[in-house]
């Protein structure tokens, strides 16, 4: 019986972790759907957003190190702090600006190139943003605090202890992440279904040429999609940054999102969510039950192997658009 409860607890936590992965994967899907770009920089976008958020919140002077090195000054802080909500809004503004610049300087010049070239361009972009984030805000580990609670949820532990005689562990941050992810997905779906821009976005995703011919501005849509992806990255950055501090490693969460994408399909928003849940539960269960037998630390590869097995049966992912090949 105990084993059953342990398993249930692991599944519950796996689902929660899966939501965290989905948050990162969402950004990939949005951009891939609208522009066919496999945006490797999504993880770095999350890092950049989180760095900017902390920087604005704590009143850091951007490019302090560079200014100090160039002029021999020793500037670090403006000496004020910005409330969390305002800081998030400002950061979102920065992400929109960034989306605009990316479109203007990079994507515009690469229209019609092969997917792999676009993919490489986003890797170049990832390098650039990683360096930029560090130059702007410094490479120290930063504490991100926008008021999200963390730690075991007493209510759930108490309730489950009463019902089953075994208190479940659920992280409060995970509950919040799930709520926020749900709101985010609902908002995205509503946006895509019911607004003019959203419909234009779906039209572009269906067919660039046709969308152009009915007078939709591709450039505007791309800027918009990258802005939304930047915002999603900001949300992911907040969640992951609250969890383990804002630092270089935050950008590596992109690697956790890739199997989610494979599994769910590159073009499906529900796929990103369901894929995240499957990967989260799968890797946690495997690590928890099989891991100790084979020496542990299996999570990194198991997620990929799991996705690979799925792909062998469904090469376009669970929810991906069916690949039709013609000669």
């Amino acid at each position, binding site marked *: 019986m105990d084993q059953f409860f342990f398993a249930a607890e692991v599944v519950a936590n796996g689902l929660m972790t899966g939501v965290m992965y989905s948050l990162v994967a969402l950004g990939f899907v949005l951009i891939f759907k609208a522009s066919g770009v*496999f945006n490797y920089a999504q993880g770095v976008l999350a890092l950049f957003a989180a760095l900017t958020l902390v920087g604005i919140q704590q009143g850091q002077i951007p490019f302090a*190190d*560079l200014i100090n*090195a160039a002029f021999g000054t020793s500037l670090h802080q403006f000496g004020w702090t910005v409330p969390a909500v305002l800081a998030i809004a400002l950061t979102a503004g920065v992400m929109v600006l960034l989306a605009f610049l990316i479109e203007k*300087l*990079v994507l515009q*010049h*690469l229209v019609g*190139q*092969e*997917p*792999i*070239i676009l*993919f*490489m*361009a986003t*890797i*170049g*972009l*990832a*390098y*650039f*943003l*990683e*360096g*930029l984030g*560090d*130059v702007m805000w410094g*490479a120290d580990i930063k504490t991100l605090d926008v008021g999200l609670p963390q730690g075991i949820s007493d209510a759930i532990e108490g309730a489950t202890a009463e019902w089953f005689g075994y208190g479940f562990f659920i992280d409060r941050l995970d509950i919040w992440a799930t709520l926020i992810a749900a709101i985010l997905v609902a908002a995205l779906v509503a946006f895509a279904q019911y607004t003019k821009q959203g419909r234009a976005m779906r039209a572009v995703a269906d067919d660039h040429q046709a969308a152009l011919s009915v007078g939709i501005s591709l450039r505007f849509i791309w800027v918009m999609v990258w802005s939304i992806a930047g915002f999603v990255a900001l949300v992911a950055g907040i969640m992951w940054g609250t969890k383990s501090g804002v630092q270089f490693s935050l950008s590596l969460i992109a*690697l956790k999102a*890739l*199997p989610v*994408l*494979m599994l769910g399909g*590159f073009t499906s928003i529900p796929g990103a969510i369901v894929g995240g849940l499957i990967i989260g539960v799968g890797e946690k269960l495997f690590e928890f039950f099989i891991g100790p037998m*084979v*020496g542990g*630390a*299996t999570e*990194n*590869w198991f997620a*990929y*192997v799991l*996705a*690979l097995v799925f*792909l*062998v049966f469904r*090469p*376009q*992912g669970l929810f991906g658009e069916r*690949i039709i*090949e*013609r*000669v």
Partner: protein
Amino acid sequence: MIYREAGDFKTSYRDDGQTFPIRLDRWGYYAVLAVAFGIIPFLINDYWASAVFVPLLIYAIAALGLNILTGYAGQVSLGTGGFMAVGAYSVYKLMTAFPEISIVIHILLAGGITALVGVLFGLPSLRIKGFYLAVATLAAQFFLVWLFNKVPWFYNYSASGQINAPERTLLGHAVTGPATSAPAKYLICLVFAFVLAWVARNLTRGTLGRKWMAIRDMDIAAEIIGVNPLTAKLSAFAVSSFFVGIAGALLFAVYLGAAEVGEAFGINKSFLVLFMIIIGGLGSIFGSFAGAAFMVLLPVLLKNVLVGSFGWPTNLAAHIELMIVGALIVFFLIVEPHGLARLWALTKEKLRLWPFPH
């Protein structure tokens, strides 16, 4: 005026089909070989060997391997780091188990073992395509790294799981181990790079290469005209992994001398090699070398300029270096999406017409 083909007559098919049809190119090629084999070994010191030439040659071999798979056969792979690890650990096991056999044979065998593993992980490519395949090869990357980290047999039960290359000699000169001289390191890598590049060139313009390219351009169409996708794809994986395995073996045995799988053969290595072939040019032998040169030399160059000449703090220099590398990658892709090899080809076109462009 100088660079032209007029007057350079071909009297046989053989002449016409050669790699460097223009005389000047041929001379240039012989000159590069003469410098590489005849002059550099006498001038090279430890710094130039370890920081520049040895990594350049080793990465060029890896890039050749990946280029065969991605550039010629069209299968995007992000498992290069894992396959290099297979090469490294194979050569380590072989070196320590059979110390009396020549290291060259061990390195070739390591390539062979990697080829087998590559075929195994290449099987999903029969069903999975494009980016899905790229991400699927990451499964190989992560699984192989985990395996080498976890199973003590691979690292001969050493306390920390590090592997160390013992000293092995070739023709009386040490080529692995700490006492290896700079010219010895350089020459063994150069010989491997030269021979493998030659092999790659001749494979890719033969039947096999044409099959790969047919698969790359459209696999269904290729199947209809009689190319067996199973053999074509798997042979691409095998040959590619053979090259990559040799690069991994050299990287560990000759260049680094000690390695830890997660650090030396991690996911970054896979991306690095993919960068090289895209910057250099997909489906080009020259591009593999050019891309490797670009990615190996640029960071060293930037570091020396920023830190050495401008005297900037190292962290700032490192961050700005990242920005410059990133910006240059984007810039090159915008200017010439087909890589340095295409730029080179365009330059040659222009040169042929120079000084009368019209």
